[in-house]
């Protein structure tokens, strides 16, 4: 029961703040709501017993990437940006895309429900102490099965870092 309530709680926050993020005119407010959405997602990770991902989400996403976003928002001129029209004239396209996506996934749910005959699988409840230690398992998986992707990811980050430095560097 607690699990369920926690899920609905975090899910509600996530969706509400995501909506607010897209609709706010002020970019800083958008960023704040995105942070809230990300934190709520972290909560959902925790509810799914993915503790390590929960803290990675907080440290990297919220504490790293979002700080970068806020930093850039403050660097660029906000006063000018506020006065201009914020929404493109593509609302109908957006609605269409959204509807198409929703329809597609809805169809998927519908067929899968029909095929299995008894609806979607339910996550089994496991007592917290019977789960394997999360960060250790993730680490083992990461450094044993997925070592190559890990290295590629680090190279990607390096490239991104160099790229960002080159981009943001002042050309004098």
């Amino acid at each position: 029961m607690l699990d369920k309530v926690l899920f609905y709680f975090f899910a509600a926050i996530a969706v509400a703040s995501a909506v607010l993020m897209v609709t706010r005119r002020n970019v800083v407010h958008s960023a704040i709501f995105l942070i809230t959405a990300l934190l709520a997602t972290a909560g959902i990770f925790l509810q799914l017993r993915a503790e390590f991902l929960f803290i990675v989400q907080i440290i990297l996403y919220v504490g790293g990437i979002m700080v970068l976003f806020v930093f850039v928002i403050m660097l660029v001129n906000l006063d000018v940006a506020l006065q201009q029209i914020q929404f493109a004239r593509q609302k109908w396209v957006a609605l269409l895309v959204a509807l198409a996506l929703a329809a597609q996934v809805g169809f998927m749910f519908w067929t899968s429900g029909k095929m299995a005959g008894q609806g979607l699988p339910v996550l089994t409840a496991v007592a917290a102490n019977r789960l394997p230690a999360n960060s250790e398992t993730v680490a083992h998986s990461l450094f044993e099965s997925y070592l190559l992707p890990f290295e590629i990811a680090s190279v990607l980050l390096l490239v991104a870092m160099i790229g960002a430095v080159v981009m943001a560097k002042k050309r004098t």
Partner: protein
Amino acid sequence: MMNAILQATLEFLKLYWAPLLCGVAIVAILPLIVGYIVLVERKLMADMQARLGPMRVGPHGLLQPIADALKLLIKEDIIPDNADKLVFWLAPVLSVGAALLALAGLAIGPAFQIAQDINIGILFVVGISALGIFGIVLGGWASNSHYSLMGALRSSAQLVSYETAAGMALVSALLFTGTLNVKSIVLAQSKDGEGIWFVMLAPVAFFTYLVASIAETNRAPFDLPEAESELVAGYMTEFSGFRWSLYFLAEYTNMIVVSSVATTLFLGGWLRPFASVPWLNFLDFVPTLLIVAVGAYCIVRAPKQPARVQQLFMLAVAGLCFVVGLALLAPVLVPVAKPFYAGIHGGFWFIFKVSLYIYFFMWLRFTIPRYRFDQLMRLGWHFLIPLSIINVLLVGVALIAGAYFNLKGWGLLLVTTPAAVIALVVALLILNAEKERNARQNQTVASDFYAG
């Protein structure tokens, strides 16, 4: 629907009533603790600066924090006209909330930890306390003032840079334990584990963390975001009264958090110094002696107080000291109280180490000038981060060598000491290169800019 929520709440309370109670207690007591840390800081500063410090409120200014808190609470709450009201309200709350939440992951003794045995342990503390940066950045932005914004930008840049160095330093220590769990980390330093504090195994990492933690908490000499002589008060410029005191609370809570992390990882947490050496067991009497000494000093000083109330107050403090002293003595001598040994003495040693760490912070603040922003960034990126990365590598190599030679405990020093020495040499090399670069830069800086 309501029924379900009620049921969930009951379930939650049944599962987590003890941590919840502890949390409430901490949130209630912490402002007082922070107030007294500030008082101690002012007293120490006064002592080092050849003056007396607060003396008026209570004997030797002992009630000053309460007076300060009252003053802050009844001050006018000013919100600047063009401020973003929502964010202006949110920012200090975020700041203090993150700092308080981070406390939950810390273990003050083997028994006292709010978030019991979480798997991600130390990462939780570090990650959550890092969220406090949003309080600073958004607060600076929301007050709509140049000084605030510059303070906010400075601080976010500073925090992001020094977090890397601090994280790397933590990794060096974590290599010895192989776990993130706070309790396991401390136990790895007791006689069940290596039996040696990690500060001895990874001194360079401790040094890096020390510097980075000062920078992360925005303390002197890295207090640029709030440098009063440059940016008035940095991101706090427009805040007053209660909001300002929230920032203040967050800053000092963060100090407690980083010192606790350092204590846990490097200084053996709640363990007594040399806990694994049996013939040094008489050290168990040190806490009692210390506390009783303080009490005795109070009794000696009490008759010299000018007012009757102050004399009584001093005597009360002395009495409290004796009671605490007795409580500390009991587990050592009385067999019945033996089970409480780890809890009571653990708490004492933990708080003692944290206090020493904070004392070091303060000492630095009174002694040395402030860095300039570019120097601060250069120190972070050109010195601390390379050093900490190299140190992680060296510690890793040392550990592999230790495993190869089957070294344990104090024996590990054989391999970690050379690693530390190499790291120090690297540090000196980096510093030297920096110095030359600086010298070259200084020659060109002044002549270039007058043209514009």
